[in-house]
């Protein structure tokens, strides 16, 4: 059983964050089974005051951040900025970070590592995914979204199982390739193949910065 803490931010303001919210819930369930302590900043609780307060108090070993962002910041509920370059990236010191957010690995991730984050896994470009209109009210049943969010979730579930940051990133890359091969080689409909361009985009955007051997 694990005895480390995971802080999860998961706002739910729009379709994109709603999908991330529910899919992050699957990781939380898995982490609970493994005995991790979960600090779940869901919806309105994904605000800067609670975020900084809990980190300063409990020093979670793993930060799993879901939300909108850009190269210099990542947000929580109602797009409130949680971490920003040259403001408070040192809050990630001594943690392993996985940020499911657009572009944050490009600059913010680099600065987090410089300020002491052990490793930072994220995306150096926009994270784009497809959804099926028929499933917007029950995202976990959306098999198209699953093609994108399962490889993403694998990063955190791999870390929980004791894989290093670099290995967790590699496992996610392999899962993307599995999704891609499934679409290319199977008898999947031409419509499903429309996901390919975005799967390759996300796979190539995902990077792991810092200590590749960092593990929980």
């Amino acid at each position, binding site marked *: 059983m694990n005895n480390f803490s995971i802080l999860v931010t998961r706002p739910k303001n*729009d*379709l*994109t964050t709603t*999908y991330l919210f529910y899919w992050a819930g699957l990781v939380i369930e898995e982490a609970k089974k493994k005995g991790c302590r979960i600090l779940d900043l869901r919806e309105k609780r994904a605000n800067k005051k609670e975020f900084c307060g809990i980190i300063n108090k409990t020093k979670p070993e793993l930060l799993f951040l879901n939300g*909108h*962002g850009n190269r210099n910041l990542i947000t929580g509920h109602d*797009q409130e900025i949680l971490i920003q370059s040259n403001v408070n990236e040192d809050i990630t010191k001594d943690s392993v970070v996985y940020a499911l*957010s*657009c*572009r944050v690995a490009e600059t913010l991730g680099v600065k987090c590592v410089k300020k002491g984050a052990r490793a930072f896994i994220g995306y150096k470009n*926009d*994270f*784009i*995914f*497809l*959804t*099926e*209109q*028929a499933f*917007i009210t029950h995202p976990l049943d959306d098999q*198209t979204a699953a093609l994108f969010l399962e490889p993403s979730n694998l990063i955190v579930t791999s870390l929980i199982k004791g894989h290093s940051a670099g290995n967790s990133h590699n496992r996610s890359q392999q899962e993307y*390739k599995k999704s*891609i*091969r499934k679409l*290319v080689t199977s008898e999947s409909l*031409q*419509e499903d193949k*429309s996901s*390919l*361009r*975005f799967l*390759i*985009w996300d796979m*190539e955007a995902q990077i792991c910065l810092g200590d590749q051997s960092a593990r929980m």
Partner: protein
Amino acid sequence: MQNDTDKIDEETRKLVIERLKSFPSDKNISIGEEGSFTKDEIIGHVQKNDEIGKKMVEVELSYLKALKRGVFFE
């Protein structure tokens, strides 16, 4: 020279729009804080050549380069 570049950009946009026409109508494309878009909305952005449209062109060109590189066999 500028006219040549504009012409290439215009041709590229036309190519991307033609490729997007085969995109399924029952799926949305979620692009971070920009929002979630239907096929017709995305094609509209590419036609307008705004930031979302430019992003789609970038994705499509990146995909074509990956195909050329043999990404499916890596």
